[in-house]
């Protein structure tokens, strides 16, 4: 067979073509393995998560970096959301999103999640937010306090380490708002099961 010598230009073209075929094969492999898309950037992961949850676009009010994930506080009109984006090495994974529609008639509006709690403050006189919760298997009553919002009107509380049996969204909590002088000006209703099931007395 008469074969013409391959020139460097032809070799480069072949490398490019084979690289494209390799990428197509990798894409097919990802589809077959049903691998959740690894995103190259946080922005891509956030956009995809918001789209999957039909939220937004809105604005990012704040972000909190943790070891293996980033929490973004979002606002779209009267709706606030917390979007958790897991970080996997160089890539970002599919995130989760929870949201609450703000009720301006309430001084404090909570968005409870499993491990964290977002509180939206509507009363401008509230300078300190306190969360009182009962962790049945981790020492009973605990309080979390913050005086500085993470973003305008938004306070984000994380469950402390060592209390993995407690979940904000399942186990309930009580919110308190204090003014700058330290006076209690608002207290939400206590979860009904504290008294009904456990006979608890709410501490001051």
């Amino acid at each position, binding site marked *: 067979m008469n074969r013409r*010598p391959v020139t460097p230009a032809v070799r*480069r073209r*072949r490398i490019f073509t084979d690289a494209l*075929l390799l990428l197509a094969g990798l894409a097919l492999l990802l589809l077959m393995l049903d691998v959740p898309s690894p995103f190259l950037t946080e922005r891509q992961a956030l956009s*995809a998560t918001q789209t999957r*949850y*039909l939220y937004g676009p809105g604005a990012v009010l704040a972000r909190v970096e943790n070891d293996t994930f980033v929490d973004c506080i979002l606002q779209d*009109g*009267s709706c606030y959301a917390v979007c958790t984006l897991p970080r996997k090495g160089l890539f970002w994974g599919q995130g989760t999103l929870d949201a609450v*529609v703000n009720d301006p008639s309430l001084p404090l509006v909570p968005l409870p999640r499993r491990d964290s709690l977002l509180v939206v403050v509507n009363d401008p006189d509230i300078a300190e937010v306190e969360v009182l919760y009962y962790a049945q298997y981790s020492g009973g009553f605990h309080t979390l306090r913050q005086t500085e919002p993470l973003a305008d009107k938004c306070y984000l509380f994380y469950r402390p380490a060592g209390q993995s049996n407690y979940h904000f969204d399942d186990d309930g909590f009580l919110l308190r708002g204090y003014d700058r002088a330290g006076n209690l000006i608002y207290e939400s209703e206590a979860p009904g099961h504290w008294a009904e099931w456990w006979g608890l007395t709410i501490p001051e």
Partner: protein
Amino acid sequence: MGHPTIDDFCAQVCEQVRFRPDHAAIRAELAAHWEDHAAALMERGIPEEEAARRALEAMGDPEEIGKELDKSHSPLLGWFQELFRALVWTALAVLLMCAIPWVAETVHNIADPPVYDEDDTVPLLEQYDKLKLVADYAPEGAVCRWRAYTFSVERVLVTWQHYPYADGYTLQANCLLRAVHPNPWLRWPRIDGWIQGEDDLGNVYASQWQQAGPDGYLGLPYTVFGGATHITPFATYYDLQIICIDPEATQLTLRFDRYGETLLSLTLPLQGGEAYE
């Protein structure tokens, strides 16, 4: 047939070219060039041997030619390209062999997707002849678009059911909802548990996560059940059941308004329509 002298010439040229896989092609190219030149000389009446000798002389210094060819036939680029091609094509061959059953299953799922809930709609369909059927149809125009998604109701099955919460029989609607998404990494839009219903009499059928509380319809916290049942790269199916629908209602609207604004709205008649096939 190769001329001994042209073969020696080619050998001297190839001695300078480090990338051995290209030697055969270089020899063939040089030999073809020499033959063409010799043939042209013979056409002008020069004897064959003399034409062959002159054509070979005209080729030039084999060592110089070899050194020039070596510059353009880099062994690094050459071996990389050869090995890369072998690797890619081997990997693709293995992948395609493994992909055959997946492709077959995907084609089958596209043609006849397993979309119904095993615990709710599947038992109804298995007892189809015994159903107190009101309507079973594929709605036209029940389509809603939001960004990357196109939502549509593929089938509505309306039956009479009896539940302990209501007096007498009420309507139940089993709705097959489909979301199409060209981007496979946006599959499974998270609307599970957030679709509410409202009939034309103003009754609201609450979703699991937007519960009405004990003051809700018939005192039930929620009356819309179901979620995603079949997720493929380009389409996600949801099997929804709305129970205890007012028997006087003639129309039901499925709605997604989790964030305070209605983003999806699909209105379905509860009676009539072309029979589903």
